[in-house]
């Protein structure tokens, strides 16, 4: 018995370097067989032709790849696609399109909140999450009282958007766009 156990242990090789799994992206299920090294960002861009999410730094520093996983924003470049079987992923393509624009997309246009546009999909995904996180009562580094209400100040929005860089420097107008949507949402909630 012992020797056969040993043989079994020695030959118990690990799984191969690729895996097959299903991802739900923008409500649609996709089954993929990919090298384990494939990040969620590369799966989206290179294998599912969802090129809205952008690759800037590929190290989680620029935020151009920001997507939502189960309702939380993350850097798609710093997570492996194979880890997301069963998760609900929303990319900029799922946020809205030309015919059905999300209010945040419209606000970016209204406020000229971009120049070259490369960081914009990540900025919009992050901006939407910023307002969701404030509504959920999640404090930030600049929140005055941890247990108090969160004021929708410039400082509060800037701090929460610090994971998204814009090399064109459209920050001032991105801030205006986010304020616009925050006001629209506040009006909706009152009515």
């Amino acid at each position, binding site marked *: 018995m012992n020797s056969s156990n040993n043989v079994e*242990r020695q030959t*118990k090789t*690990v*799984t*191969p*370097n690729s*895996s097959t799994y299903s991802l739900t992206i923008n409500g649609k299920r996709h089954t993929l067989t990919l*090298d*384990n*090294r494939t*990040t969620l960002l590369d799966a989206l861009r290179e294998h599912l032709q969802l090129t809205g999410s952008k690759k800037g730094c*590929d*190290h*989680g520093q620029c*935020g151009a790849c*920001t997507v939502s996983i189960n309702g*939380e*924003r*993350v*850097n798609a470049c*710093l*997570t*492996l696609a*194979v*880890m997301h079987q069963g998760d609900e992923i929303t990319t900029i393509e799922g946020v809205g399109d030309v015919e059905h624009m999300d209010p945040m997309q419209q606000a970016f246009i209204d406020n000229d909140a971009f120049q070259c546009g490369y960081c914009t999909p990540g900025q919009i995904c*992050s901006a939407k*999450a*910023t307002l969701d*996180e404030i509504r*959920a*009562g*999640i*404090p*930030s*580094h600049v*929140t005055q009282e*941890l*247990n108090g209400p969160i004021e929708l100040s410039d400082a509060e929005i*800037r*701090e*929460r958007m*610090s*994971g*998204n860089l814009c090399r064109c420097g459209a920050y001032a107008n991105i801030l205006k766009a986010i304020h616009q949507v925050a006001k629209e949402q506040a009006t909706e909630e009152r009515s």
Partner: protein
Amino acid sequence: MKAFSYERIDDAAQAAARAFEVPGSKFIAGGTNLLDLMKHEIEVPAHLIDINGTGLDDIVATDEGGLRIGALVSNTALGADERIKRDYPVLSRALFAGASSQLRNKASTGGNLLQRTRCPYFYDPAMPCNKREPGAGCAALDDGADTRQLGVIGTSDHCIATHPSDMAVALRVLDAEVETVSPEGQTRRLTLDEFYALPGDTPEVENALEPGEIITGVVLPAPVGGRQRYYKVRDRASYAFALVSVALIETDDGKGRVALGGVAPKPWRREDADAELGNGAEAVMAKLLDGARPTEENAYKLTLAERTLAALLAKE
């Protein structure tokens, strides 16, 4: 990135046993630091064990009146937890002082403890680094090296890197313990002081984890109360590592505790320095930074640490 095999194991003890059994295994939870390092080929695991299904993602009350934080609780969920905000505010503040929202959503409690240094020479495979390659030498100790961000105390002749975590500094001042399970299924608890190793002549050994041993959670003792603050000094207002950070608890009996981040290979605290809190920042730092060995470029951290504590003590 080097190729690797992947499997998901939904039980912590089984994951530990598997990691012990398969050479070159690494656990992956949030992956925000590990994947970054794998892309640089600084980390080259042959096998990844995904532990996200182990259920270690809740925060529960302990019999001792404290909290047990599962290793998979995200930095956002931990910082925003009502009990943490109310009873351990220094921990919430430290968490929200670190990284970006995207990273905090993904980064786990266990992974935050295990994140690697951001020493520029550790991150540059073209340069010698004793952490990356034991015995290779340390480029940070060469003449003219860029040491502005590196350690001033607890360092050695082989490594002067700092531990980058903000969370761990708050956990140190709160007397938290790290809970682990071994490949044999044995559990143990270590204080943060016991958990983190100083570099000495083995800078590649950063903590007390044995092969395969996995972090299952962090245990906070009953709330200590008092005024709790975390102040982080950095090169820009957001999303940057600490040059110096101070975690401070001042209790009603005039006593307190202080720990520093950004200055040492582990969150830096000394009980004899805590005892000096009533005598001001200079007296605290005389003890806390006793034996410091700064470089010419980072000696400013000694002054900065003292002034940051003085500012906190003066603040209402």
